[in-house]
């Protein structure tokens, strides 16, 4: 009887370590769950502040003197002229490709948008059209080396067979935008 009592005591005492073992073994489990139940990541946010790009015309386009006759006058960006058809070239003194000055962020590249359709020159006689605008920048993209650049623009003038003599003028837009 005495022996049985002491054995029961031992067993009762064993309950406490057993219970502690149970609690202890559950603790790391809940700690691990806290680690698994959330996560954080850090990402980047970025922006580039650039100065405004601006364009100013410095030289007007001028086809110079042209003698009437159905055809065209092609004005290149180096001011050179070529006549086609029955049109012939007159005095070339005034002939000039248009020139534009572009300013903006140093080193930035930009895109040039030339007129996509013909513009009209009005004057003393029937209207004439100018089309096929070209720039001296391959691919119509430029780089603002030192923050500035110059764009030269040529085009093709369409002359009528009986174009009244006189001066004809018109205007066109050139647009630049950062790449």
């Amino acid at each position: 009887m005495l022996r049985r009592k002491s054995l029961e005591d031992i067993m009762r005492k064993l309950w406490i370590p057993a219970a502690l073992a149970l609690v202890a073994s559950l603790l790391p489990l809940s700690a691990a769950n806290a680690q698994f139940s959330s996560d954080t990541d850090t990402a980047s946010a970025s922006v580039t502040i650039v100065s405004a790009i601006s364009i100013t015309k410095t030289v007007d386009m001028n086809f110079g003197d042209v003698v009437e006759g159905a055809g065209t006058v092609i004005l290149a960006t180096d001011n050179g002229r070529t006549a086609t058809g029955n049109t012939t070239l007159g005095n070339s003194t005034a002939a000039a490709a248009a020139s534009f000055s572009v300013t903006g962020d140093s080193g930035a590249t930009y895109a040039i948008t030339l007129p996509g359709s013909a513009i009209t020159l009005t004057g003393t006689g029937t209207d004439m059209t100018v089309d096929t605008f070209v720039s001296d920048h391959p691919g119509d993209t430029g780089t603002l080396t030192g923050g500035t650049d110059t764009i030269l623009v040529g085009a093709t003038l369409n002359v009528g067979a009986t174009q009244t003599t006189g001066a004809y003028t018109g205007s066109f837009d050139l647009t630049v935008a950062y790449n």
Partner: protein
Amino acid sequence: MNRRALTLVAVPFAMMSFAAVLLTPPAAALLPITITTLTGLGFGQVIATSTPGIVTVTPAGTRSVSGGAVLGNGLGVTAGTFLITGDLNNTYSITLPSSATLSSGAGTMTADNFTSSPSDSGNLGLGTQVLAVGADLHVGASQSTASYSGTYAVTVAYN
């Protein structure tokens, strides 16, 4: 007497082994939730003027402006995106920062009003979800031209 003693010994040991059995299943039942950056948040190119402005990028990656700033080209405009992985069909909460600082050698800017899609809570469905984040960027009056960058943290937690 011997039988009784055996029973008394057996009970605590049975409890202990039961506890040992309990250890494994809960840990295995829950996959950890993880978040990984896919793309940074990009506000693109912005032109500062003499008036302050705010550039907003939505979680859908759409950019707009209010105030004095002018939008430059859209290259680099993107919402921040994150890949969330975890347990099937579990929902989770999303914690966005209240603000973040973008800096360059020329100055600093603040981004705030962070928004996300899904907005407050996500559902992992088959175990993954892409979380997209947008924010407002405050462009100062005559903010110096430079490339600015900073970081922000996003936390996800099982509901």
